[in-house]
């Protein structure tokens, strides 16, 4: 029963590929239909957490069984995947008119959706690994389908990191299989708890490697900027909305289902929190700071939003790592809100790219008059991202702050404050450079995006405001998840959440804000009607503005602020990895020249030698 949620999208993928060859829009329509079907059937699944499905396979004498099961956590992720994919499919129906690889895009996109649902329903390492690899490879093709030259390099870096981490995951899984005889999570959990803490911690860290890479946590976040920046404009929302979250899903599985917290209970603790999970929280904090500082510097809007995704993921990781009920529900709230407003931002920017063709912010300006709805969508989304009260962004950040203050983690709180206040800066930069200011001559005759692209943006705006006023809807699924994972639940009502020391009422905030707005509106309309004046009739200290194009401030918007971090950004991590790979290749080259020297018999000798060593090792273990 569960398998059809996985195999229908994958099957539809090939149909979409064939159909799309003939009619350009067919692929996207099929994706939309499939994801609509998934969404409906998955929501019908709500509440029946006991469905499991398993089938086994015997291979070389070992009995391997693949387990699939539904639980609140996996249900939430599956629904989120389906929801975001239907919006993106709708959006890409006519935003891909002039996109060469649209049939390949739809093929991979559907396979990714299927594999993601597969990952989420998997209850054992092997199925998890199979669907994980499927997802990684198809997303690799999709990223490299973006801008030719740059996308290639970004895709390579992405695939090397993910593949390395996945194979480490496989080694640890096989090791556990040898000890417990089965890949299932529950049996692995008992084994790890019983095992000596040091070894099980090592195993769990290796298992969580692919999840850290996928979630873009600090040391391994370098692939995110290039992958997002160069992926095709329709795939970026999915990439930053959903793909980063799957890494978080994996972390939650490691922390709770594989009982990482129970194992490190007794290790040395810092203010009541085991040191290792505090380390994870610190990693999250550093992700926030680096993501924010680098986001402010970017001139390409997609890279800017990519870095902001990294810094927002930092919040979620902090929430999970401090393992308090408030922290967990805050991070789950933020996870859902981030998906919503981040995909709105990416869709709005995709609409702008669809019309103007460029992603560089200083090549645009004054688009508010030509694309008002895109501006409205972008504005609501950045109000949410900046965490300003009437929207959902504020609620999740507020809960995380409560969790941090309750336990008194000062440095995490400083990073969180820095991240949220600095988000005003990098959020306002695209608004002011792309939408406001003087209109560029070449964008004079731009029209608003077609209807089919407007619908997803409108839906997302409504969802942002809806969840902003009634967070209770999100809270009931989150409480079921925390119940399933064994964390006490946070009590809430439809529009208020119980913080560390008092309830928070978002409906009231909305009413008060609208009351204030009405008073200001009354005051505004009381005075004389003002005369509309063109954008060129502005204060230029008496001189005449000859060309509007140069009367627009867009390049290096926060130069004084960036100057403070110039040397920090210069020593960015990518150079570190570059140098690492360079001398790795050099040493390999030296070794090869020294040993093989091109003669055939040397090769034969070495292979025999290798075979002998392997046989010996196999015999010892």
């Amino acid at each position, binding site marked *: 029963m569960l398998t059809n949620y996985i195999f229908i999208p994958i099957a539809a993928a090939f149909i979409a590929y064939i159909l799309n060859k003939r009619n350009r829009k067919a692929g996207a329509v099929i994706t939309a239909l499939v994801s609509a079907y998934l969404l409906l059937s998955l929501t019908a699944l709500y509440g029946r957490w006991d469905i499991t499905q398993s089938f086994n396979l015997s291979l070389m004498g070992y009995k391997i069984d693949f387990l699939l099961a539904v639980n609140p956590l996996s249900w939430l992720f599956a629904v989120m995947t389906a929801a975001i994919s239907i919006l993106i499919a709708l959006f890409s129906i006519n935003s891909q008119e002039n996109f060469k690889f649209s049939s390949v895009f739809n093929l991979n996109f559907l396979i990714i959706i299927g594999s993601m649902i597969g990952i989420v329903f998997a209850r054992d390492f092997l199925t998890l690994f199979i669907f994980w690899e499927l997802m990684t490879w198809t997303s690799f093709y999709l990223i490299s389908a973006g801008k030719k030259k740059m996308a290639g390099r970004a895709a390579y870096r992405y695939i090397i990191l993910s593949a390395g981490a996945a194979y480490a995951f496989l080694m640890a899984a096989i090791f556990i299989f040898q000890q417990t005889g089965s890949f299932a999570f529950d049996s692995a959990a008992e084994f790890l708890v019983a095992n000596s803490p040091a070894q099980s911690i090592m195993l769990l860290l290796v298992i969580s490697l692919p999840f850290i890479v996928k979630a873009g946590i600090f040391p391994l976040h370098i692939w995110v900027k290039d992958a997002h920046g160069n992926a095709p404009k329709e795939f970026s929302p999915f990439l930053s909305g959903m793909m980063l979250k799957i890494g978080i899903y994996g972390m939650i599985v490691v922390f709770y289902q594989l009982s990482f917290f129970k194992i490190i209970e007794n290790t040395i603790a810092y203010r009541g929190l085991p040191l290792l999970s505090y380390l994870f929280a610190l990693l999250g904090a550093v992700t926030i700071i680096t993501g924010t500082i680098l986001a402010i510097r970017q001139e390409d809007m997609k890279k800017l939003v990519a870095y902001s995704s990294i810094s927002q993921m930092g919040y979620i990781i902090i929430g999970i790592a401090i393992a308090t009920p408030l922290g967990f529900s805050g991070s789950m709230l933020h996870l859902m809100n981030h998906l919503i407003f981040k995909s709105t931002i990416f869709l709005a920017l995709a609409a702008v790219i669809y019309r103007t063709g460029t992603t560089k912010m200083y090549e645009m300006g004054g688009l508010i008059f030509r694309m008002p709805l895109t501006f409205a969508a972008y504005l609501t989304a950045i109000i949410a991202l900046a965490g300003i009260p009437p929207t959902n962004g504020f609620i999740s950040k507020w809960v995380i702050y409560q969790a941090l203050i309750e336990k008194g983690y000062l440095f995490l709180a400083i990073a969180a404050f820095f991240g949220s206040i600095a988000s005003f800066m990098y959020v306002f930069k695209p608004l002011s450079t792309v939408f406001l200011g003087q209109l560029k001559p070449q964008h004079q005759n731009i029209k608003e995006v077609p209807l089919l692209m407007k619908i997803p943006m409108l839906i997302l705006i409504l969802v942002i405001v809806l969840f902003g006023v009634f967070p209770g809807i999100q809270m009931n699924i989150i409480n079921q998840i925390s119940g399933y994972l064994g964390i006490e639940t946070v009590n809430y009502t439809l529009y208020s959440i119980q913080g560390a020391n008092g309830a928070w009422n978002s409906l009231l905030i909305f009413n008060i804000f609208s009351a204030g707005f009405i008073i200001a509106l009354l005051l505004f309309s*009381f*005075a*004389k*009607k003002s005369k509309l*004046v*063109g954008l*060129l*009739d502005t*204060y230029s200290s*008496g*001189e*005449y503005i000859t060309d509007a194009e140069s009367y627009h401030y867009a390049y290096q918007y926060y130069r004084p602020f960036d100057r403070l971090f110039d040397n920090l950004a210069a020593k960015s991590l990518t150079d570190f990895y570059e140098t690492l790979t360079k001398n790795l290749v050099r040493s390999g080259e030296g070794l090869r020249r020294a040993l093989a020297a091109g003669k055939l018999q040397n090769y034969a000798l070495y292979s025999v030698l290798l075979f002998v060593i392997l046989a010996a090792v196999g015999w010892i273990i």
Partner: protein
Amino acid sequence: MNNNFVKGSWQEILDWAQNKSINMLHYCTGCGAIELPPTMTSRYDMSRFGIGPAATPRQADLLLVTGYLSTKTLRRLIYTYEQMQAPKFVVGFGSCTINGGMYWDSYNTIKQLDKYLPVEMYIAGCMPRPEAILDGLLKLKKMIADGEADGYQRYQDNLEYYHQNQEAVLGEVQRTQ
């Protein structure tokens, strides 16, 4: 807020408020501008009558033409004047704005200011002293209070006359859209 309602008692209140707080545009057009700092600062202190400097034409009500006007400055002054908003007043300093003053035979300065901009009042003195400026501005405040200072109205009514004179002297003039 249509205009006839505004014309009634409400206009007196607005005139009263307008004369109590005037923003003077910070644009030193001619040599008389050297007497403005002493009037604005500690010794003669123009701000005790509610008159303060404003940086841009949008925020300003009062345009001081301090002394002679070269054609280049006049072209920019007209552009700035049209950027200012409705109850706006122009005050001319010294004899250069009345009949060209000491530069009556200069090829580059205009001879009569009120052919190009509606002038509320002139303040005498080849560069009027701070006391004369204050006295002039106090009279201007009284004129505003009584509603006589309607230079901007005169400019709107015979716009054609002013634009013709301006084009005659300056050739083409840049208009605000």
